[in-house]
């Protein structure tokens, strides 16, 4: 028996229930949160180790045999995503200790955070398409509540767009599941994959494939339905922003990877071609949107979109190398993006604003913090020898190999524009002098901030992760390569879930 495959779901669920039980004591809630975050990361590493040994780890919930029951399946990609969830969860848990106001804690910040993590882990591990939908909803429900916690006007405005579009996407997702069930009579993803591979591809299957693409595309913030993201991600508490930025859109990307490598591979020239153009336009619009922004978190939000484009590009090119690039990119991106959001939170604590015009002088007074920004920022832009360089390099090389010239050119251009955005932040926030009339007592250290080191701890940890991926690229590349191997050969996944095929 392999309990490691359900632990990443059970730990946050248990932590959520326990923090709810200790509703009255914020101290206990914090300790449970920290413990659960460590446990989740440990369970993730265990799962990764186990998938590296066995290839696939499967558990049939309630001992109902597949395809009748719900299968929980971990392949390498799932395990990698779970480890990343653990890393981000831990970083956010530590960071939240300092930045979460009392009022938020009293309104159930920690239970909601655990519920969100449970939803994210569940989505990564589910082997059943309807169960995937349920985990999506768990995640969305928690994110709705976290997004509006505090109840400011801007939050409500952002939340309305966020909720409306995500519900719309869920509706499409559900209808697509219904149609698919009508066609193949099963909800188990491995079984669907097997059955679809046995039949002649018809137009109807492509229609369903596109419905899945639209639904996951909205959740991943891909072109053209991405505008809910920049409208809402800069409004909640910074720890919530960082958590969303790191994990939520990537769940959509993961679902896309799962569905378009396991299930809809019969008419690649049609489906993946559409995906290719969506990816290209996503990259371009995201980065152009960022160029026009002058608010720290909004710039970062637009960059999430452009980076999503790269990940989808890896899937759309659909060659072994491109998939490796995509997986590598997801690993790099989750860590770097969360890190940048956390930096913006520290700057806010020092200077009390997210507006670039009102910020400045951080490099002069806090060179260490400037370094903690520079590493992820340059990594995001793709400068060697940081993690982003290798991620972009693999994808662009895959693009050249398949002779997709336009897309490759766009990917290179977007890299350059990303660098422009990061330099803009650097020049405004870190380089220029502090604007007149700004309260600099916190920045210069006149007013002591005894909890600052707790906030910096996750920053340092995530920066070290980025450096590790960049400087130690070979083992990470091999891991991504093994994961891509599994994705390109869905027969292994199908056999692991259903047993030996007739």
């Amino acid at each position, binding site marked *: 028996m392999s309990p490691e495959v359900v632990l990443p779901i059970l730990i946050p669920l248990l932590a959520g229930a*326990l923090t709810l039980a200790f509703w009255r004591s914020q101290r206990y809630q914090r300790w449970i949160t920290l413990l659960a975050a460590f446990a989740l990361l440990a369970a993730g590493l265990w799962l990764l180790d186990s998938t590296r040994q066995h290839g696939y780890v499967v558990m049939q919930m309630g001992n109902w045999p597949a395809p009748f029951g719900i299968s929980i399946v971990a392949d390498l990609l799932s395990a990698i995503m779970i480890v990343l969830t653990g890393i981000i969860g831990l970083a956010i848990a530590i960071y939240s200790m300092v930045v979460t106001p009392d009022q938020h804690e009293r309104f159930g910040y920690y239970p909601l955070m655990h519920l969100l993590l449970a939803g994210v882990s569940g989505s990564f591990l589910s082997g059943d398409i309807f169960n995937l939908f349920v985990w999506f909803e768990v995640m969305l429900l928690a994110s709705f509540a976290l997004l509006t916690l505090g109840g400011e006007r801007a939050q409500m405005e952002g939340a309305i767009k966020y909720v409306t579009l995500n519900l719309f996407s869920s509706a499409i997702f559900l209808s697509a599941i219904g149609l698919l069930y009508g066609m193949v009579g099963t909800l188990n993803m491995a079984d669907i994959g097997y059955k679809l591979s046995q039949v002649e591809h018809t137009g109807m299957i492509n229609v369903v494939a596109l419905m899945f693409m639209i639904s996951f595309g909205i959740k991943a913030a891909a072109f053209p339905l991405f505008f809910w993201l920049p409208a809402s991600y800069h409004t909640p508490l910074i720890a919530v922003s960082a958590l969303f930025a790191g994990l939520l859109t990537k769940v959509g990307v993961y679902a896309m990877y799962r569905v378009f490598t396991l299930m809809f591979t019969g008419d690649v020239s049609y489906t993946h071609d559409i995906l290719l153009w969506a990816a290209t336009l996503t990259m371009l619009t995201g980065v152009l949107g960022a160029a026009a922004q002058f608010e720290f978190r909004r710039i970062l939000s637009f960059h999430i979109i452009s980076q999503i484009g790269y990940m989808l590009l890896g899937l759309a090119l659909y060659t072994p190398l491109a998939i490796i690039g995509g997986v590598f990119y997801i690993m790099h991106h989750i860590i770097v993006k969360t890190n940048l959001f956390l930096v913006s939170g520290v700057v806010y604590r020092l200077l009390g604003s997210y507006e670039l015009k009102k910020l400045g002088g951080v490099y002069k007074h806090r060179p260490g913090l400037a370094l903690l920004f520079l590493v992820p920022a340059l990594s995001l832009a793709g400068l060697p020898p940081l993690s982003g360089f290798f991620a972009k390099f693999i994808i662009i090389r895959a693009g050249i190999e398949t002779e997709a010239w336009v897309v490759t050119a766009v990917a290179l251009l977007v890299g350059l524009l990303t660098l422009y955005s990061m330099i803009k932040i650097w020049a405004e926030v870190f380089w220029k002098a502090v604007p007149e009339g700004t309260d600099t007592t916190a920045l210069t250290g006149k007013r002591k901030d005894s909890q600052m080191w707790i906030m910096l701890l996750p920053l340092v940890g995530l920066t070290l992760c980025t450096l590790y991926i960049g400087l130690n690229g070979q083992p990470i590349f091999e891991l991504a390569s093994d994961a891509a191997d599994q994705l390109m050969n869905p027969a292994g996944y199908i056999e692991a879930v259903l047993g030996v095929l007739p």
Partner: protein
Amino acid sequence: MVEDNKKIMKTNTLILHTAALFLLPLQLIFSVFLLLRGHDEPGGGFIAGLVASAAFVLYLFAHGVPATRNILRVAPHDLLAIGLLLGLAAMFPGLLYGEPFLTAQWWEFTLADSVIKLSTVLIFDIGVYFAVLGSILTIVMSLTEAEE
């Protein structure tokens, strides 16, 4: 307390006020009946939880939030937490026997000539019952208090 009652009495009819007192225990007993009946026949934790919360909501409409909190004795979100923990507890016994999570375990014994079957499914159902009761009461009470 007396003040509260007076205020609420003004806005409610005497019939509702009195009926709520008698309906509350009846509905609660019925909800327990539904809960225990649930495995093979229509019923179960979810529907039973809804019936139980309907009982308290009816009392709440007639007597107001403070009086309902009084007879409930525990805070609604504690009920929710208990429900979730019970639900999670039902997952683990299967693991002790080396079976996957959520695998149902059954214990049978005879008591006064009738076979009694207890199972982790029942624990899970009780968990659902409390979770539904807790969340609905949390929502209704917060909404009512926000209105006042």
